[in-house]
């Protein structure tokens, strides 16, 4: 295999893996509060986190630039403090993947957490365990399969992320060209053989992960 293909594949896996770790930590926390707590603006929050699922990735990318670009309302302070901007780095690809994959994690794990038998949670309270203890020992272990399914789906989604990544991280060969971006460039420059190889590779990888997600989620829903 060509070294640029290997680079793109490694970068794609790296970006998807790192994004999935953040999605897992942040997504499960948000899903837990959405599932267990009643607070003002709860459904607004849910809609906000779900939007990237239905918005075109370019729109999500646009918002991310507004927030994290060098002149963005968060990016500006980051740049002033450190002289560093996330734009056009592989971290930007992670951020883009994180935002588009998050809704899949939240939806799947919220459903799994909500489906945990209320009596088991109550039993845990009457046995002297606090909300946190109950979450760690009863609720999350029982929602485990849904959470794993969400993580696998998120990983697959991150692996295929294109639009928001293109806007935020650009398509810099040897720097930010993940597999989907590399395929775009190769097809654009007429290198159909190489593009086809990568397409096949990506299809197999995505199919494998979806198969794993199905194996887990079947037992949950």
């Amino acid at each position, binding site marked *: 295999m060509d070294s640029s293909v290997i680079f793109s594949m490694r970068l794609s896996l790296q970006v998807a893996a790192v994004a999935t770790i953040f999605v897992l930590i942040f997504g499960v926390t948000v899903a837990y509060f959405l599932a267990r707590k009643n607070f003002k603006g709860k459904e607004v929050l849910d809609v906000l986190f779900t939007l990237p699922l239905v918005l075109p990735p370019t729109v999500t990318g646009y918002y991310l630039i507004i927030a994290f670009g060098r002149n963005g309302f968060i990016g500006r302070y980051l740049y002033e403090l450190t002289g560093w901007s996330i734009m056009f780095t592989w971290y930007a690809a992670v951020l883009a993947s994180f935002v588009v994959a998050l809704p899949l994690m939240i939806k799947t794990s919220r459903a799994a957490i909500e489906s945990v038998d209320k009596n088991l949670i109550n039993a845990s*309270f009457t046995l002297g365990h606090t909300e946190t203890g109950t979450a760690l020992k009863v609720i999350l272990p029982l929602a485990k399969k849904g959470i794993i399914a969400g993580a696998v789906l998120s990983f697959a989604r991150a692996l295929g992320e294109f639009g928001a990544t293109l806007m935020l991280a650009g398509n810099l060969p040897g720097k930010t060209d993940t597999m989907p971006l590399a395929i775009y460039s190769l097809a654009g420059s007429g290198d159909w053989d190489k593009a086809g190889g990568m397409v096949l590779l990506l299809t197999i990888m995505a199919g494998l992960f979806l198969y794993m997600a199905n194996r887990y989620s079947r037992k949950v829903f």
Partner: protein
Amino acid sequence: MGLTVDIKKRLNGFTLDASWEIGNELAVLFGQSGAGKSLTLQLIAGLMKPDSGIISSGENDYFDQARGINIPPYKRSFGYVFQDLALFPHMTVRENILYGSKGVPDEERLERLADLTGKFRISGIEDKMPSEISGGQKQRVAFARALIRRPEVLLLDEPFSALDNPLRIEMRAFLMQVREDFNLPVVLVTHDVYEAFTMPDQLIVYSNGRVAQTGAPSEVFSRPASKEVELLVSAKDIYSEMSGMKKVVHFDRPGPDLHRKAEIVIN
């Protein structure tokens, strides 16, 4: 030792307004489904918050609206056995029982576990999952889990209602033995008239969210205070299974004190 309950709670158009007090005895909350018995237990355990009133046990005030006291459920000392037992399906029998031992010193935990499994005849199944043991064993595990922390009061939400008859009879006797061994107040929720008559020291009859009558079972059954209590305690089909509709029926109290007989006259 005992339990004082005086609570009001409105919930989805239903109003619970119940007040009763028990000592170190077995009390049965008896009434039709939807009368507020299970809701009362949940409020006592702190799983829901009453609108007003007090809940106290011995020297511990668990809820007092006037003084702004509302102790969270995990700090209340009640052993609770749920109707569906609520054994954790992802934990072994041992893990399930030990899960109830929070606050027990480490060196004492295993001692208590061994003591309970021995007493309840469930030793040898500690490494099994709840799905792998029999219905009777599940019941005993749920009791062991609720008791390992040595709670002040044992609350039972119709734990025997889904059992087949032989097992139900066995578990009634088991409960009387538990009450004797652990010497703690027990509140049993049931809509089974046989349990209401034979098991309690004090019978508390619920009707539409209110306490309709309290007293010794023989007293309540022979002198119902109102028409609604009379209907509850004299449903004829319930007696037929036991004594063929004789005028005077003798019930054996299940459990260790079989010599204690109760007596009732059906009019």
